[in-house]
């Protein structure tokens, strides 16, 4: 190991614990937010990021002539916000969130480097930590530009992010505070 988290200074272990606790809390709220605005099913994700998210009927390509459709709506329909991420908002989201995700993955990777685990397991965890946000955003873009079926990639990215965090948090907490050598 590059450094040993188990036998590190109390301040380092305290820092890592607080970081993991803070990140865990933000992830819980992140999951809540996903539930509110995008959903956890492929259908909901496709509706949020897909090209046809704001339309009654999904339409991938612009029609040859402008089409007008009319349907009765209630006051509640107009008030109910159907959250949809269009291309411009996705550009902004990607620009804003990717650096933050990189910092989170890097921080969790630094903690991983201090774990007493086989080298290959360390490599696998670090790969997972960075692959998760890539999958998440690649999925969003593919859902937008390719097919709504790519919504599964967004879900896989989200779950991979949670899995990476749980693995690092569980191992680090156990090794720092219980399994001392």
């Amino acid at each position: 190991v590059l450094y040993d988290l188990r036998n590190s200074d109390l301040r380092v272990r305290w820092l890592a614990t607080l970081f993991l606790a803070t990140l865990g809390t933000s992830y819980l709220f992140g999951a809540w937010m996903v539930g509110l605005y995008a959903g956890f099913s492929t259908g909901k994700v496709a509706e949020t990021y897909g090209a046809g998210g704001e339309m009654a009927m999904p339409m991938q390509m612009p029609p040859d002539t402008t089409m007008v459709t009319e349907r009765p709506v209630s006051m509640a329909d107009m008030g109910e916000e159907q959250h949809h991420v269009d291309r411009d908002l996705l550009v902004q989201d990607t620009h804003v969130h990717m650096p933050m995700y990189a910092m989170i993955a890097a921080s969790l990777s630094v903690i991983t480097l201090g774990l007493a685990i086989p080298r290959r397991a360390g490599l696998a965890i670090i790969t997972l930590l960075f692959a998760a946000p890539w999958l998440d955003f690649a999925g969003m873009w593919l859902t937008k530009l390719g097919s709504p079926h790519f919504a599964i990639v967004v879900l896989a990215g989200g779950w991979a992010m949670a899995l990476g965090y749980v693995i690092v948090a569980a191992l680090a907490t156990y090794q720092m505070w219980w399994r001392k050598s």
Partner: protein
Amino acid sequence: MKSLALGAALAALLHITPTVVLVKRQDAVARLLPGAEQFTARELHLSSQDSRRLHDAVGWEPPDGVITFYVGKRQEQVSGALVFMRVDCQHGPLELAIGYDARGTIRGVEVTKATVEMKPWVLEALRAGLMDSYRGNTNAQAPAGAEKVKPRVGAMPGYMAELIDKGVMHASAAYRLFYR
């Protein structure tokens, strides 16, 4: 370590603050389509050619090619139309509701959403009477709200007024070109 801290600070600075509702959509509908009893959503799925026309007119086109007008009717007579318009900037999105009467004159504009950061700037621009400058304008008239309030507000509220002008301009161009 230094670059790590710098990166984290930069990421935090770039983060867009959450969106807050300034006026509920239902309240905006009630104010901008007063007395309407029935509503229809008129969705315009723009062709590439019409998207280009709109872009040529105001330098904007809906990213997903769809503009939705909500039409209000009273006793089977159209009383007006309303469109929700989003304007993006580096501080996040603003959502406006722009209402037109049956002749196509602007009945009113409401800012329905802004980000936490933008809210005080928007409120300052509104207190300076920004919305009064749109009321009664024709849909062909260039909005000039920012010009009117800028001498009385700070730089950021002035910038918000420019963004609101832009949203009104986009909505009016869509109304003028495609609303039948």
